């Protein structure tokens, strides 16, 4: 068994001769010939081979998956051999996409039906959509007469796997298609889906798996994620890699030639002028920002500064905008009624958004694959050129985007992280398995280990999850409250327990954290939602922006916020917490490499002309940009030293605000999160003071009101296990509390829907701190607690890459150089000056209350 890249490409003749003539005829009429992904994939799928297709949007990806399937179904239907059962399951992460696909399949089927009628043949293929939106009557209909092609979501699939009668329908499916697999593989929704597929495999060992993906890397891992494991080896899969089909027209633009000797106002003014100019020159522009807050800001500013150009022809599209509003904007986009649409991440995924001729990225998209995914939303036809512009806002951004562009052009894509051994998702799925049937523990383990995400699951973790599910962590008398499954230790079997089990499971399925969102309303009309954290910071009378419109806070009632329109008042723009996209580790390393190469030139005292030429060639950038990059590096070189892939620069500064250590650790914030907390934790233990942390992608700053003994801390970190230190450092952190809450919900320790009641996350009921405390009382190794720690360290942060950095320091591959500075060096400027809002203090509750107490005392005394 193996995973291999498909090299064989088929001709039109070969493909047509294998397709059902009716479908072939329709296809020829419509397209004449086949696209690249179709040439590689169609016959593979025809032969029932597992296939992963990675290609840009608009290259006929969907039909490359469906052609062989439709062909077979049409043939069966022609001969009246089509049974009333599901042949193909199509899974998409987006409900919105389901509707698109249904339409895109029904249209050709209608045309083919017509053709068939002319030849006196009857074709009847049913397509059914099953998502959270499907009504009860539709579901009942489906149960009576199942569709031949079922379109669904990962969550609905999990529900169907436990639907008493309907599940049998799934066990005969011949194909399973997973669309947008790149968007699933890197989060817990994907992990959850991978287990659902293995549950299906258990009952249906022969189905063929087809994955559709945008540009992503490494394809081998994503393919393995798609097909899973059989006897500890990856199942067969053919990878169709046509990621770089289209012409790329990407450029990095700076609103001003000089980004440093200008004020914020000037940059902002020029930025919006540039945006407006670009938008006006094109038919429809899609603008991506990195945060929802920025999305709001951009729409707001464009409307204000160029009120003639933008009225109803611009829209904001992000996950906080209400569904109705989002659908309205999508429709307008499809109909070409928008001049510009501004989005954060919500339009990255594949719903058909019509004709876009320009994509603007405001600020670095932080990873090469994300950049390609976003820019790929333009030019939605096969032969169109993809046109994207990256607009940079400061000099770090300039370098980041330039290196990103180089890698995109050279087809180097950063690797994704696929979460592994998630115990919360595991608990939820085992619960599902146990409800469906009585089953041997070892068979459950076999199902679980079929998933790529659990291929290395330790037996002990599996056992702990079973212990959790069977309530063995609680005392016997109250076990009935906690036990979710029946477990017989002698026969080593598990099964359903209690009458409510199925209802509880079915109504609490899923992995998307139930963050408390507050509905924003004017009377009964829902405008969208905002974060509970954000609400906590507002008072009546405050004005904020949502969906590009301004509203005034009136009052809150439960989980709704009543507002009124506030057109003429200046807003306090929402600041959504911690949604900054992190720089990918691979792209970070590429930037480090660039720094290394450039440093070499400076140290060899090459002429300015020579260096600029090098930058020009290396980054494919224009002269202005090269000059700006040169100046930036030159300043850093003259002022201090240039940090790079082999040199980690640490600057020590003492000023009126205290002692600071600035680490030029350009590894991305996921790694810096680990490193900075580990150092801060060691420092706070050795100097018994509170250490403040400021981080960004390029480095971090530790600050205290006393000198920080750097060498001592470094030695401690190199000697100890970094993972152990990191675990200690997050023990009382906000982030662990928050993530534990999510994990507790996924593992059904907290139920959103219970005994007919739906409720919000209910922070009022129990604070995250006390929730965490309640399980610390059981055991530090309680599986759900372990999972929350793993999620924080591996998924949110990047402990594995942090370990690599520490190893490289130990091996001497990275040398540390410490310097004393009067003021921060140019490279340190961003993290030192602007990072403050991101401050985390390394102190526990007790230290916190003591410090606040001192503050209050001072205030009282000064009176």
């Amino acid at each position, binding site marked *: 068994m193996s995973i291999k890249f498909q090299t064989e490409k088929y001709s039109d003749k070969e493909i047509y001769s294998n397709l059902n003539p009716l479908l072939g005829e329709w296809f020829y009429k419509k397209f004449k010939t086949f696209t690249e992904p179709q040439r590689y994939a169609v016959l593979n799928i025809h032969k029932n081979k597992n296939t992963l297709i990675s290609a840009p949007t608009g290259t006929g990806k969907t039909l490359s998956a469906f052609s062989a399937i439709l062909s077979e179904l049409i043939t069966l239907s022609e001969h009246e051999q089509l049974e009333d059962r599901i042949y193909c399951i199509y899974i998409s992460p987006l409900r919105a996409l389901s509707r698109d696909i249904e339409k895109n399949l029904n249209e050709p089927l209608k045309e083919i039906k017509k053709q068939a009628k002319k030849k006196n043949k009857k074709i009847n293929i049913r397509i059914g959509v099953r998502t959270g939106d499907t009504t009860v009557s539709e579901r009942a209909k489906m149960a009576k007469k199942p569709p031949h092609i079922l379109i669904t979501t990962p969550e609905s699939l999990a529900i169907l796997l436990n639907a008493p009668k309907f599940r049998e329908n799934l066990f005969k499916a011949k194909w399973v298609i997973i669309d947008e697999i790149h968007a699933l593989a890197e989060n817990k929704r994907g992990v959850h889906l991978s287990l659902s597929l293995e549950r299906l495999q258990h009952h249906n060992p022969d189905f063929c798996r087809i994955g559709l993906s945008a540009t992503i890397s490494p394809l081998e891992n994503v393919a393995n994620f798609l097909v899973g494991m059989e006897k500890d080896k990856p199942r067969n899969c053919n990878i169709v890699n046509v990621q770089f089909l289209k012409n790329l027209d990407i450029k990095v633009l700076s609103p001003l030639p000089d980004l440093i000797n200008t004020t914020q106002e000037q940059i902002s003014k020029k930025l919006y002028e540039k945006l407006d100019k670009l938008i006006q020159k094109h038919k429809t522009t899609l603008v991506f920002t990195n945060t929802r807050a920025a999305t709001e800001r951009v729409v707001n500013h464009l409307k204000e500064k160029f009120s003639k150009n933008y009225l109803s022809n611009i829209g904001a599209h992000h996950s906080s905008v209400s569904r109705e509003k989002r659908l309205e904007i999508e429709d307008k986009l499809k109909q070409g009624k928008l001049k510009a649409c501004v989005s954060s991440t919500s339009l990255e995924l594949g719903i058909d958004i019509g004709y876009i001729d320009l994509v603007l990225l405001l600020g670095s998209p932080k990873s090469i694959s994300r950049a390609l995914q976003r820019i790929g939303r333009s030019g939605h036809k096969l032969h169109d050129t993809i046109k994207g512009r990256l607009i940079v806002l400061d000099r770090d951004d300039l370098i980041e985007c330039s290196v990103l562009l180089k890698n995109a052009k050279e087809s180097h894509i950063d690797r994704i992280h696929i979460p592994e051994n998630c115990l919360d998702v595991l608990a939820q799925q085992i619960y599902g398995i146990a409800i469906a049937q009585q089953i041997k523990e070892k068979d459950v383990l076999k199902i679980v280990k079929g998933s790529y995400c659990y291929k290395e699951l330790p037996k002990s973790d599996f056992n702990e999850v079973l212990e959790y599910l069977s309530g063995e962590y609680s005392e016997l008398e109250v076990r009935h*409250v906690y036990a979710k499954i029946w477990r017989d230790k002698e026969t080593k079997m598990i099964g359903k327990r209690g009458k409510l089990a199925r209802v509880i499971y079915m109504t609490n399925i899923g992995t998307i954290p139930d963050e408390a969102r507050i509905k924003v309303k004017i009377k009964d009309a829902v405008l969208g939602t905002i974060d509970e954290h954000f609400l906590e910071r507002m008072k009546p009378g405050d004005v904020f922006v949502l969906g590009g419109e301004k509203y005034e806070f009136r009052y809150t009632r439960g989980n709704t916020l009543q507002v009124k329109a506030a057109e003429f008042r200046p807003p306090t723009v929402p600041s959504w917490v911690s949604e900054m996209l992190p720089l990918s580790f691979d792209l970070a390393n590429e930037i480090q490499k660039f720094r290394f190469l450039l440093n070499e030139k400076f140290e060899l005292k090459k002429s300015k002309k020579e260096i600029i030429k090098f930058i020009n060639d290396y980054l494919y950038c224009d002269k202005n940009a090269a000059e700006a990059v040169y100046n930036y590096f030159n300043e850093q070189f003259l002022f201090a030293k240039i940090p790079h892939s082999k040199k980690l620069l640490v600057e020590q500064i003492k000023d009126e605000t205290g002692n600071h250590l600035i680490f030029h650790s350009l590894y991305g914030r996921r790694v810096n999160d680990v490193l900075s907390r580990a150092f801060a934790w060691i420092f706070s233990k050795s100097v018994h003071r509170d250490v403040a942390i400021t981080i960004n992608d390029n480095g971090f700053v530790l600050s205290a009101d006393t000198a920080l003994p750097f060498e001592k801390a470094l030695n401690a970190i190199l000697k100890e296990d970094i993972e152990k230190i990191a675990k200690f450092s997050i023990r009382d952190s906000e982030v662990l509390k928050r993530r534990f809450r999510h994990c507790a919900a996924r593992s059904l320790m907290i139920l959103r829907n219970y005994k007919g009641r739906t409720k919000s996350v209910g922070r009022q*009921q129990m*604070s995250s701190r*006390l929730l965490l405390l309640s399980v610390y009382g059981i055991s530090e190794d309680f599986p759900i607690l372990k999972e929350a720690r793993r999620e924080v360290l591996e998924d949110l942060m990047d402990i594995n890459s942090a370990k690599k950095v520490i190893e490289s320091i130990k091996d001497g591959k990275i040398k540390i150089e410490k310097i004393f500075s009067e003021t921060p060096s140019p490279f340190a400027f961003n993290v030192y000056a602007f990072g403050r809002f991101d*401050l985390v203090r390394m102190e526990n509750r007790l230290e916190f*209350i003591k410090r606040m107490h001192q503050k209050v005392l001072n205030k009282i005394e000064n009176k």
Partner: protein
Amino acid sequence: MNNKISSGVKAVGLGLFFEKESVLAIADFQLGYEEHLHKKGFLIPRFNFKKIKQMLKKMFQKTGKLKKIIINGDLKHEFGSVSEQEWKEVIEILRFIQKNCEKIVLVKGNHDNFLKPVAKWENLKIVDEFFLGKILFVHGHKIPKKSLLKKSETIVIAHEHPAIVLSEGIKSEKFKCFLKGKFKEKELIVLPSMNFVAEGTDVLNDRLLSPFLKQAELKEFEAWLFEEKPYYFGKLKQIE
């Protein structure tokens, strides 16, 4: 002094200690609060009982054996059906308290209708209110008769579960607290809850529960925040 609440009264743990009289007042244990959470879908393990016992132990170490312990209402959360486990906990806590004092005074709270079975216990009495000299103890869910108020100089209530949120930047933490202020020219002291499953009402932002506090000038109240020991934070208007 951080723990001096008023003349002759200091905070010990989450209780009020009247040293001269050898009396300790505590309130709002809400044993069985976990059951209440279970019904809402929070299947968290029980830990309130254990934590309360630990806290009491620490408090008794400081006070030594007492003459009286006043439980100012809500020993148990909610009425309605009581599980065997909950009964066990109630009895065990009361026995433990009994060992450390000569007499237990149980002031009725709004959740204490079920306590009849223990009413026959020796050295334990259940009352609607209790006077220690001129100090009136009531649970605080309703305002008592004028005649009672008239006789008092100080009123000690519970019921509110007062807490205060301290925030700085992205950080915010909630702490249980003691409150002291004026209610109709009398001194009013509010006890924090001994319930460890919830911190309590954020008195600066949440809707208040006790009619006493609803009628009082809350901003003028002084607060002692509790984390392992009390910390004096001055008047509430200064904390904002």
